């Protein structure tokens, strides 16, 4: 008898897995202490949740609210500013906009029944902790956003900012990030067609890894993330749910790094690009078969986000059996399952009569699938676990009506002094030898040096539609093989300018991305942005943010191109030192026939070289000031958006009439750098004379070569098209000056009366910097 009793007791005390905290428990034990602070919630936010529910949240509900109300998911500090993008619109801006902000990605009608969807997002924090996986899953996440719209992903590009090139930790981060992107995007079969790589000590400890993806779809294939149709099934498919990335993006990206804190590595997600590639093909087959009513990818906040967002955007109710989630690790608790950010998962809403067909497609692609529940009309998101109710919430309170903060804003105490410290008074060289030396110093400086070390690790050929990619100013992809219809895309952000004046810096970022698209021959059509800033709890950072958003939204209205979506990344700082404000702006353009694309370098001998636009003394924040004088101060260049529009129109017309053989935007490093890059692109030399420019613009030689005035482009024009091209410029009233001629046999860049540099010296100076630092792969 005693033996049996003992045995029974033994069995009783054995753990049966975690006891769920049910809604009934929550009602019965209102005073139970809950670890809301450890989950990143503030006391008043926790109180607000209790008020919404009329009781304490269950641990599952607390997990959901904590991730969905995080800065990363809720935009609680930025929301009041981001509204401007929706408010400052003209009818011309919405004409071709099929889906605007608020969905997984914006969608633009590009004609011929085709649409393009695109978005840029940050994966900064995970990429510092674990560069390879952080950058890899950044690509994976943005690509799933594109699939969610019903599109086939067709291209990616990455905007990277690292610490000083010679800082001890930089190589670790660069190696990991570049290989992570290379690994993931190459395995997905997506061409990487552009992007940015910058080095600056301000990003040490806070590298920026932004990832942009573009997708293409037919108008009728557009899908949205909503759960409509009572009785429709809610299906989770793709990779299994594991313990990786619990609270990853949502928690990591919502706090600053502190040196003494615990290591955050377990919060970084681990990517499997093979699983994602199969998921892409599987989703596209599901779309083709019209087997999906609504779809949402699982990114930050995982199942919490997908269920609450789908329900909020649909009929308002959903019932989920959490036990049906397929797990990698059966010991996961309900809260961990709700918060897990395991990659390569999607959630679909499927009509019951199409479920068998849906499951047949996922089976064909060996994609594991489970039906979790269904759409209801209760207005509640209800989640059961082990037969008991652990979540019962209004999904809108989780996904939509989170807290909104009007954070304190303060004009930075240091900015007046910084702006007063102009680069105009820094000594400029007059001796031609010294000008030559500074030109080469800039050409080989980390930020102006050739980035092939990075881009040679990316596939540009796959899919067979890449018309332009690095080092051209914008990437270009053919959409329609019959008509040649295509899109071009470019991104830009100059953190140094934004530090001097965030409003002007944001306008400049837009102007440059816009110009970079225009030089390819495409017509700019829409904008995406990734706003990288320091802590929103720092009033001076909040001022920078408010200025940048104001500047960018005003500038979009002036250029009449809409912001279609994007992302805010706060808390990019270690300790009290924030990064430079870095609003990465991406512009998408449309070209009717990619055969008319314009590359960024000289191709033929004997073409005339023209400079479009005028120059003034604008060296503040320039590459010259930074590289030669280690100086940052003054005010960024002026930007004339009406002029940029005029210039873009001229370039589009010139490309359409095939008058322009090459066009290259002047930006970092000014005219000197642009000329060198145009020569290096295809190894065709040039003879350039500055006389007319010096006289017209009233600048000295060094200023003419290094100033960074906007609205300028160098173009090469075949002799036979010269008259037509000049006529085009006159007709449009844009300033133009002939500054030289291409000369293939010279094998050099000659700036008459100043210097001559051989192609070999240009090449070795430009290409040597990154391999010398990060290790050569093969002989160049």
């Amino acid at each position, binding site marked *: 008898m005693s033996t049996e009793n003992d045995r029974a007791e033994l069995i009783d005390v054995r753990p049966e897995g975690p006891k769920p905290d049910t809604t009934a428990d929550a009602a019965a034990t209102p005073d139970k202490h809950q670890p809301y602070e450890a989950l990143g919630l503030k006391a008043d936010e926790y109180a607000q949740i209790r008020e919404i529910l009329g009781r304490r949240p269950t641990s599952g509900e607390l997990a959901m609210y904590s991730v969905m109300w995080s800065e990363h998911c809720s935009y609680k500090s930025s929301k009041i500013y981001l509204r401007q993008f929706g408010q400052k619109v003209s009818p011309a801006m919405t004409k071709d906009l099929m889906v605007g902000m608020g969905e997984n990605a914006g969608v633009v009608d590009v004609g011929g029944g085709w649409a393009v969807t695109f978005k840029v997002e940050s994966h900064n924090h995970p990429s510092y902790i674990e560069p390879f996986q952080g950058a890899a899953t950044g690509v994976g996440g943005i690509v799933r956003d594109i699939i969610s719209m019903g599109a086939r992903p067709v291209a990616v590009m990455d905007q990277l900012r690292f610490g000083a090139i010679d800082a001890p930790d930089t190589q670790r981060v660069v190696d990991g990030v570049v290989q992570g992107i290379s*690994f993931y995007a*190459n*395995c997905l*079969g997506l061409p990487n067609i552009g992007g940015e790589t910058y080095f600056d000590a301000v990003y040490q400890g806070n590298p920026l890894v932004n990832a942009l993806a573009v997708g293409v779809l037919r108008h009728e294939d557009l899908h949205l993330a909503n759960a409509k149709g009572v009785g429709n099934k809610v299906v989770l498919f793709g990779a299994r749910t594991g313990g990786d990335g619990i609270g990853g993006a949502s928690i990591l990206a919502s706090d600053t790094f502190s040196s003494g804190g615990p290591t955050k590595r377990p919060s970084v997600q681990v990517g499997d690009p093979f699983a994602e590639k199969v998921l892409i093909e599987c989703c596209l087959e599901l779309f083709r078969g019209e087997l999906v009513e609504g779809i949402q990818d699982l990114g930050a906040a995982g199942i919490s986000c997908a269920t609450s967002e789908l329900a909020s955007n649909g009929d308002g109710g959903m019932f989920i059996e959490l036990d049906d989630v397929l797990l990698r690790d059966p010991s996961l608790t309900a809260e961990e399952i709700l918060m897990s950010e395991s990659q390569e998962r999607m959630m679909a809403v499927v009509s019951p009569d199409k479920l068998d067909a849906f499951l047949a497609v996922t089976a064909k692609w060996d994609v594991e699938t489970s039906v979790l529940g269904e759409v209801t009309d209760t207005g509640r998101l209800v989640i059961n676990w082990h037969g008991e109710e652990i979540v019962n919430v209004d999904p809108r309170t989780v996904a939509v009506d989170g807290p909104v903060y009007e954070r304190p804003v303060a004009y930075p105490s240091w900015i007046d002094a910084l702006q007063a410290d102009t680069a105009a008074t820094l000594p400029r060289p007059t001796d031609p030898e010294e000008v030559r030396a500074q030109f080469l110093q800039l050409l080989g400086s980390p930020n102006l040096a050739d980035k092939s070390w990075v881009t040679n690790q990316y596939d540009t*050929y*796959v*899919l*067979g539609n890449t*018309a332009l990619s690095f080092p051209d100013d914008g990437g270009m992809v053919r959409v329609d093989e019959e008509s040649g219809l295509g899109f071009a895309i470019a991104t830009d952000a100059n953190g140094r300018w934004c530090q001097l004046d965030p409003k002007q810096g944001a306008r400049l970022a837009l102007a440059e991305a816009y110009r970079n698209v225009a030089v390819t021959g495409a017509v700019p059509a829409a904008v995406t942005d990734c706003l990288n800033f320091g802590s929103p709890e720092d009033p001076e950072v909040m001022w920078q943010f408010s200025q940048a958003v104001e500047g960018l939204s005003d500038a979009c209205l002036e250029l009449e191109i809409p912001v279609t979506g994007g992302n805010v990344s706060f808390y990019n700082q270690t300790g009290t030192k924030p990064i430079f404000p870095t609003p990465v702006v991406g512009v998408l353009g449309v070209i009717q026939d990619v055969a008319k694309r314009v590359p960024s370098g000289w191709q033929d001998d004997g073409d005339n070289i023209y400079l479009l636009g005028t120059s003034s003394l604008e060296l503040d924040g320039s590459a010259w000031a930074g590289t030669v004088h280690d100086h940052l101060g003054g005010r960024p260049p002026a930007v004339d958006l009406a002029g940029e529009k005029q210039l873009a129109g001229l370039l589009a017309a010139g490309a359409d009439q095939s008058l322009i053989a090459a066009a290259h935007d002047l930006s970092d490093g000014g005219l000197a750098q642009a000329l060198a890059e145009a020569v290096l692109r295809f190894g065709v030399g040039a003879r350039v004379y500055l006389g007319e420019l010096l006289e017209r613009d009233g600048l000295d030689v060094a200023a003419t070569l290094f100033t960074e005035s906007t609205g300028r482009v160098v173009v090469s024009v075949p002799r036979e098209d010269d008259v037509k091209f000049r006529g085009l410029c006159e007709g449009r009233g844009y300033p133009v000056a002939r500054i030289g001629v291409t000369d293939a046999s010279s094998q050099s860049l000659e700036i008459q009366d100043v210097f001559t540099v051989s192609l070999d010296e240009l090449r070795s100076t430009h290409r040597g910097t990154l391999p010398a630092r990060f290790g050569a*792969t093969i002989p160049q």
Partner: protein
Amino acid sequence: MRVGVVTFPGSLDDRDAQRAVRLAGGEPVALWHGDHDLQGVEAIILPGGFSYGDYLRAGAIASLSPIMTEVVDAANAGMPVLGICNGFQMLAEARLIPGAHTRNAHQQFIRRDQVLRVENASTDWTNGFAEGQEITIPLKNADGRFIADDETIKRIEGEGQVAFRYVGVNPNGSMDDIAGVSNARGNVVGLMPHPEHATEPGFGPDMPDAMSSGVDGLTFFTSVIERALSK
């Protein structure tokens, strides 16, 4: 001519291979790895990509896919089979061609426009070239280093089974600069660079006369089609 292109889970350049067949005047036929059906095709392409995520070894799992039974039988019976990049790795894993592949010597993925020398212009896929002809074909791989034991190298060098050699730069540390090999019969050819990405003006490698204009890869596909037509 009907040319099958097999899609495996993780195939990436399958649609590009189909396009190349079309541009060469053939009719591409999409084949699925899980079927046991070659749909009456007269030649087969195993395309590039990361089938099965390169798990185990690149090409190892795909070489055991259901359709490979039919592919191996057809190849042994003389049907032209071309393996590109990951397809090259599958051919090696399936023992249809000699040798194996390891990680690039420099340990990185590399993409470049690569000059190759055609060493054997008599195979089903190379007969449109002249022996010794230099061609430019895009290359993009992580596990592209061709290796074999000394005896095998000696044999394939001696018997003309080296189809292509890297010129100028050996991009991955391959032995003897070998970029592609064939079987003894010359109907099965595998190579690391991607001929299907040098078939359409505007989307190929840069050439001295014009950017993105390289179409040297087209000859792979016209070779097999024209030889079939002349039979």
